[in-house]
């Protein structure tokens, strides 16, 4: 489960011993996020985003629970008014909680996207961490469902038409599609039944996410974290205990990143939103331009890229491509054929990785703004490249690329032999002398 040198939990007081014999929760915490969990010593700041995602999940659950105390899931003006009048104006600090929840969703996606691209660059999805990656994708899918349903709840124009368009995806499937759509909505168009069930599920899903996060972390802690070199941990010199080293680093970085979150929440709370959602939902009038929230733009671009019927209707192609663009990622551990994890040691892969980043950004641009012929063309090219990257480029690059020489170990890549001096005294004194360890490892 963990490395042999992981420090075992030692209850320090009589109460801790009493507890440990009966319900060893402190032991579990110590081994999971305390001094008993050894972590590679060379993690860079990109490894902070997992913890940050957990923090934003917590912010969303806490602000969401209190907002639910004031929200009324009613399509006859109730939902719109309890959000925009009651919560935003009348409830004490309601505006702050609502803006924190709104922007918290965006920031949750920002940190999750950085976390995902970190995994893509450093090959974190490769053996033995395939399940960590796949559970992460499950979390991501649940996040998308939760975010979509949450966006519907204020029952503004974008809420309503977003619900109309997204449930419309299902009607693309022949025969079963339309009945499924009606069943999901509880009517022929989004209405009371829709807003009530979305509220119920929007409240439920974050706790499901929390459960899958536990599985994600559990699966991660079997092999332990990957690291920027992608080289496996070999001995104690490669690791540091999670506490106090990474709790401190995560704490400092969370403070820095939350400062950014607070600045946006206070000074540009509507920057990431859409003004049309301050207009009450009107089933008889479509906004001139329907867009989802920014974090769905790349997928929206893929959906819109299919404009020609080819065997199947264009609409069905668009929906299938959009779903496959995510489902494809479940196969990534097997599509990337290179045994080298980290992009730092893969000169060709590294270039294609940055092309993918640009490609997804282009998709976002093509999906987020009104379709002009140029934008549609860019979106189509970017859609093709997205699939090419995963289905063709990654399998080929893994075969033809000559990776750079990997470091012998994590410690040799960062310490250059001076680890005795650089390590904190408390750690250095407890560690066996260096020469001895090397002999043992050899």
């Amino acid at each position, binding site marked *: 489960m963990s490395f042999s040198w992981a420090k075992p939990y030692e209850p320090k007081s009589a109460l801790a011993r009493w507890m440990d014999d009966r319900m060893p929760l402190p032991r579990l915490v110590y081994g999971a996020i305390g001094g008993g969990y050894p972590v590679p010593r060379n993690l860079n700041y990109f490894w902070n985003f997992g913890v940050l995602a957990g923090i934003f999940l917590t912010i969303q659950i806490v602000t969401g629970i209190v907002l639910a105390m004031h929200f009324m899931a009613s399509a006859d003006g109730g939902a719109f008014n309890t959000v925009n009048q009651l919560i935003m104006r009348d409830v004490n600090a309601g505006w702050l909680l609502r803006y924190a929840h709104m922007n918290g969703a965006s920031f949750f996606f920002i940190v999750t996207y950085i976390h995902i691209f970190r995994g893509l660059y450093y090959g974190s999805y490769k053996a033995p961490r395939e399940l960590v990656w796949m559970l992460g994708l499950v979390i991501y899918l649940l996040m998308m469902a939760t975010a979509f349903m949450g966006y519907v709840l204020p029952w503004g124009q974008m809420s309503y*038409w977003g619900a109309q368009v997204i449930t419309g995806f299902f009607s693309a499937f022949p025969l079963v599609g339309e009945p499924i759509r009606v069943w*999901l909505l509880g009517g022929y168009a989004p209405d009371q039944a829709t807003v009530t069930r979305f509220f119920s599920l929007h409240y439920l899903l974050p706790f499901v996410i929390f459960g899958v996060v536990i599985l994600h972390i559990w699966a991660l802690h079997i092999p332990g974290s990957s690291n920027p070199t992608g080289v496996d941990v070999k001995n104690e010199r490669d690791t540091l205990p999670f506490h106090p080293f990474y709790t401190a680093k995560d704490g400092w970085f969370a403070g820095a990143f939350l400062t950014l979150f607070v600045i946006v929440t206070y000074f540009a709370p509507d920057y990431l939103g859409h003004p049309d959602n301050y207009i009450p939902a009107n089933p008889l009038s*479509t906004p001139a331009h329907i867009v989802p929230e920014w974090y769905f733009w790349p997928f929206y671009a893929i959906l819109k890229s299919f404009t020609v019927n080819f065997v199947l*209707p264009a609409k069905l192609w668009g929906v299938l491509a959009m779903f496959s663009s995510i489902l494809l990622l479940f196969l990534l551990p097997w599509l990337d054929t290179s045994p080298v994890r980290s992009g730092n040691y893969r000169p060709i892969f590294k270039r294609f990785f940055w092309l993918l980043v640009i490609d997804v950004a282009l998709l976002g641009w093509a999906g987020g703004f009104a379709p002009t012929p140029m934008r549609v063309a860019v979106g189509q090219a970017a859609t093709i490249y997205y699939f090419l990257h995963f289905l063709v480029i990654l399998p080929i690059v893994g075969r033809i690329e000559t990776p750079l020489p990997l470091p012998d170990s994590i410690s040799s890549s960062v310490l250059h032999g001076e680890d005795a001096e650089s390590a904190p005294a408390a750690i250095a004194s407890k560690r066996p002398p260096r020469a001895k360890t090397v002999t043992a490892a050899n």
Partner: protein
Amino acid sequence: MATQAESATLDHQHHGDGVRRRDFLNVAAVSFAGVGGVIAIAPLIVQMSPSADVLAMASIEVDISKVVPGQGIKVAWRKQPVFVRNLMPKEIAEANAVDISSLRDPQTLAQRTKPGKQNWLITMGVCTHLGCVPLGISEGENRGPYGGYFCPCHGSMYDTAARIRQGPAPLNLQVPDYSFKSPTVVQIG
């Protein structure tokens, strides 16, 4: 656990023919619980289908006496917009001049209207692409290059028989079930 295992062993020794009473009991009990479990899910599934109050709104009557040729009105049916349009002779001629085989969803204007009432084009105001409300029913709205409706969401263009001509929508605007109660009253649904 231990006692269970013991009794199973005993059971096995008593019935050497290979079929044990316990096997039958296991299969029967698990099947019973399984079928019961599946049936118990049914109410959880059907509760999400449209409820009786939603279905009760299924039909409406519309007075069309005030709609002069060239005009159209938008009425709500099942919380969805329905376009009722009184076509001008020129628009009827345009719709009939189209080569049917060139259409994505081939239908004639006559097939989309009631006999003798070819000027009354009654369709859902719901784009068949992703459910937006197309423009063009109200005066001054963009009707697109084919003079029917134009969907602003993804640029689907419909002609004067509300047939899809260009853009991502796969089908013509749907014609709901309706009938003329009198020359000036239409019942939709």
